[in-house]
């Protein structure tokens, strides 16, 4: 049995109301890349959190290197040479890379043989060596706040290596990366394997598994569906097992039928609160029946474009025309009434009032008009009737119907509620920002269909997404933003994913 470095036997973990892992058993061989595949909420992260000591299983055993262990804390897991790169990095922004890596186990030294201080030079050198050995390309003296997301992730990898981890867990490592960065990361992962490390990769992206993983365990609603050799299994089979039903990858997209221009943005410039330009002289237009997608790595000004069009942030220069009408100086309310719907990136912090019930949230954009409000008095019956109608039409599921407090609803249903509300406004222009972020395959499929249906109904759609697949799959026209500038606008069919990816990295001429 000692060929397995990690064995998790009959693991069950319950949280109030759900069974996150139900009798799951997996065994990982030394020196392989083992993928854990499953939709959001399938229990992948929970399973790995138990291996990393963040939770303890309610039932079941964990065996490491042939010995039964009870992992009580992440520190304990580190002692067992287990390391984990979390989805959200745990780094101190104004510390250098080395300082972050040695945090918690700083090697002491004495200045002039007296004053205790931290030895930075030694670790600096050691980290530089590690970085070189695995091709991580990290300069240990730089501060975290000065490096990009992809480098930060590599710092997390270095942190594990520095602590001599042999079993490396990656939790959705590619969610925040561009296609090129993903390739780079996958190469690093391969490099780690060839130097004898064992890697567990949590993901819901099938193509990555296909590219690097040796074996793959599929979880569906907390249960283990199967473990298979990746080489002998098709992507389609894996997808079906993961969702528990047939999935159609191809979206049925009708040929485009563009009408008159709906939105015209010219010379849009937006400054951040520190007066730095975050959107620089951006111009584009969207026609009826067109999906205009803005691609870009997170934080390159895409969200600000959407916010500026909706009127949520001030515009410092430029002009916005909606159906030929100048809306640059209008308030959010006036723009909503003029015909803009907006599905915001942050559905909980912006799109919903979590402590309101479903009916109240579904009327958030219309509560001030009849039939919801007559002479300043709210009409409860109108709220209820409207809520019921939308919940039914858009299949919004909730515990206590329309009087469910939205906070208690699932992410997918919260998003459905926002989309239902915004579609019902029947606006000329619909803005979708990261509409499928954090949702599972089934919900994503529905939302994509809905976006296409709106396009076919003749609405102009502005789609902003970090998911390149989503943009390639849906867009009629693609604009790529980099560092606040619109680098390129072209019909979707003339661009390949690689080209878009290169623009996203700021390469201007392809």
């Amino acid at each position, binding site marked *: 049995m000692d060929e397995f470095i990690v064995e998790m036997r009959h693991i069950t973990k319950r949280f*109030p109301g759900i069974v996150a892992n139900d009798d799951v058993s997996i065994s990982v061989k030394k020196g392989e890349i083992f993928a854990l595949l499953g939709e959001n909420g399938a229990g992948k992260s929970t399973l790995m959190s138990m291996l990393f000591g963040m939770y303890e299983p309610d039932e079941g055993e964990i065996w490491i290197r042939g010995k039964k262990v009870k992992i009580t804390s992440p520190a304990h897991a580190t002692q067992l040479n287990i390391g984990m790169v979390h989805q959200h990095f745990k780094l101190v922004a104004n510390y250098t890379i080395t300082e972050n890596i040695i945090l918690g186990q700083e090697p002491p030294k004495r200045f002039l043989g007296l004053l205790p201080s931290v030895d930075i030079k030694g670790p600096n050198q050691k980290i530089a060596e590690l970085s070189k050995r695995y091709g991580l390309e990290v300069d240990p003296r730089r501060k975290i706040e000065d490096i990009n997301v992809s480098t930060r992730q590599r710092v997390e990898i270095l942190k594990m290596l520095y602590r001599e981890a042999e079993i490396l867990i990656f939790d959705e490592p590619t969610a925040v990366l561009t296609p090129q960065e993903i390739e780079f990361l996958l190469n690093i992962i391969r490099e780690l394997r060839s130097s004898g490390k064992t890697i567990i990769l949590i993901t819901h992206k099938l193509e990555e598994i296909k590219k690097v993983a040796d074996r793959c365990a599929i979880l569906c609603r907390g249960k283990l569906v199967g473990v298979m050799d990746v080489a002998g299994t098709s992507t389609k089979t894996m997808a079906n097992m993961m969702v528990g039903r047939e999935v159609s990858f191809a979206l049925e997209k009708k040929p485009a039928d563009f009408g008159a221009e709906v939105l015209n943005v010219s010379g849009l410039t937006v400054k951040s609160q520190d007066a730095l330009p975050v959107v620089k002289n951006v111009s584009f237009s969207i026609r009826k029946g067109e999906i205009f997608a803005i691609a870009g790595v997170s934080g390159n000004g895409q969200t600000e474009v959407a916010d500026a069009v909706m009127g949520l942030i001030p515009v410092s220069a430029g002009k916005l025309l909606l159906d030929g009408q100048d809306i640059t100086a209008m308030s959010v309310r006036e*723009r909503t009434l003029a015909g803009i719907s907006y599905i915001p990136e942050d559905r909980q*912090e912006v799109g*919903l*009032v*979590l402590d309101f019930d479903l009916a109240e949230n579904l009327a*958030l954009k219309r*509560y001030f008009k009849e039939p919801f409000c007559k002479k300043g008095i709210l009409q409860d019956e109108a709220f209820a009737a409207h809520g019921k109608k939308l919940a039914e039409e858009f299949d919004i599921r909730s515990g206590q119907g329309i009087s469910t407090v939205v906070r208690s609803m699932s992410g997918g249903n919260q998003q459905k509620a926002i989309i239902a509300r915004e579609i019902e406004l029947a606006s000329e222009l619909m803005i979708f920002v990261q509409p499928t972020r954090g949702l599972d395959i089934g919900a994503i499929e529905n939302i994509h269909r809905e976006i296409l249906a709106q396009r076919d109904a003749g609405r102009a759609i502005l789609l902003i997404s970090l998911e390149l697949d989503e943009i390639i799959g849906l867009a009629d026209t693609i604009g790529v933003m980099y560092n606040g500038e619109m680098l390129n606008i072209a019909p979707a069919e003339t661009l390949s994913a690689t080209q878009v990816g290169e623009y996203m990295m700021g390469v201007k001429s392809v």
Partner: protein
Amino acid sequence: MKHDKQNTVAPLTRGFVKILGDEKRQSISIPLFAILLSLIAGALVILLFGKNPITAFLSFLQGSGILPKSAYAAKKSILTDLLSMINALTPMIFAALAVAVALKTGLFNIGVSGQMLVAGFMATVLVGYSGLPAYLAMPLVVIVGIVFGGAVGAFMGWLKHRFNINEVVASIMLNYIFQYIISFFINTYYINPVSRQSQPVSAAARLTLVDTAAFGLKMDIPLGFILTIPTALLVLFLLNRTRMGYELKVVGLNKRAAKYAGINVGRSVVSSMAISGALAGLAGVTLYLGYYNSIAPRVLTSVGFDSIAVCLLGNAHPIGILFSSLLITIISKGSNYMSSMMNIPQEIAEVITGLILLFSACGAFIKYRVALAREELSALKLKTELAISGKGGKKA
């Protein structure tokens, strides 16, 4: 070994959580539990003095006209005590409603005392010394109170909106400014050399009819109280059934969502503080031209601060506030009689009142602990259910 833990801790917690009920019932059960805790704490202090807590609590009720005393002075009875308690209750209700309206918009109006003082002073100067007949003076006092209280509140809201000055800081600083400016005017123009307070307002302008003879008794009739219940209902209606209330609540719960929904956040903040200030103004005139008939210079009333705890105890719900105000007023009014009856120093009576206020304000903490315990319990329950069904399955 995990089993032992479940069996020892769970039954107590389980029973406790069961009593407090689900979220809906908790809005009532948790304040009640907070009151129970505060009474226990008060009882412990009384026990330390070697007195019987039950008698002490009964004397609180006797002192505030809920239960009959053993003896009454001439022209006094339980009715006079009750009316006197209601006289003190009136400003407390308005002040707590003022805190509640701001709280629903996510604002903390700690300036209620200052707003009360401004309203009380302006009504005193403009109407109290005017010699107008009662049928003109009384409504005018109420209107002046509402207008000036509202104006001060709106000013604080405007500072918050326009310059993003935290309303807590603005309120505390403005409290000082009002307190000293007003005491300057009182000391310079309106001082009564004997009482060292402002000159008493005319009886016609006073909202409490003092020493009214009826039923062979001499009692104080607090006319302001007539306004409390309709005002509470009005606030309830405003918050739950009007467009404005909807907007205030959205702003209070999620400012970014409010902006996204097209709500004018600045206007909501200013309106909310204006309404809160107007209610504080009502509290001010019922205190300074009702319960009292003069203003002591350089003193801020504690009503405006106690009302924060009262509001929290009443779950910031207008109807809840009616009850929590009643409770706190009974205790603070009854403490005098309690201390003389029980031979407990007045200071200790105040300590007990303070303890009750303190425990009353910890409802949120209790709620948090209960939610935690509930979560653990439901996890446990699930486990037991699964274990039982598992066993049953094997038998079958």
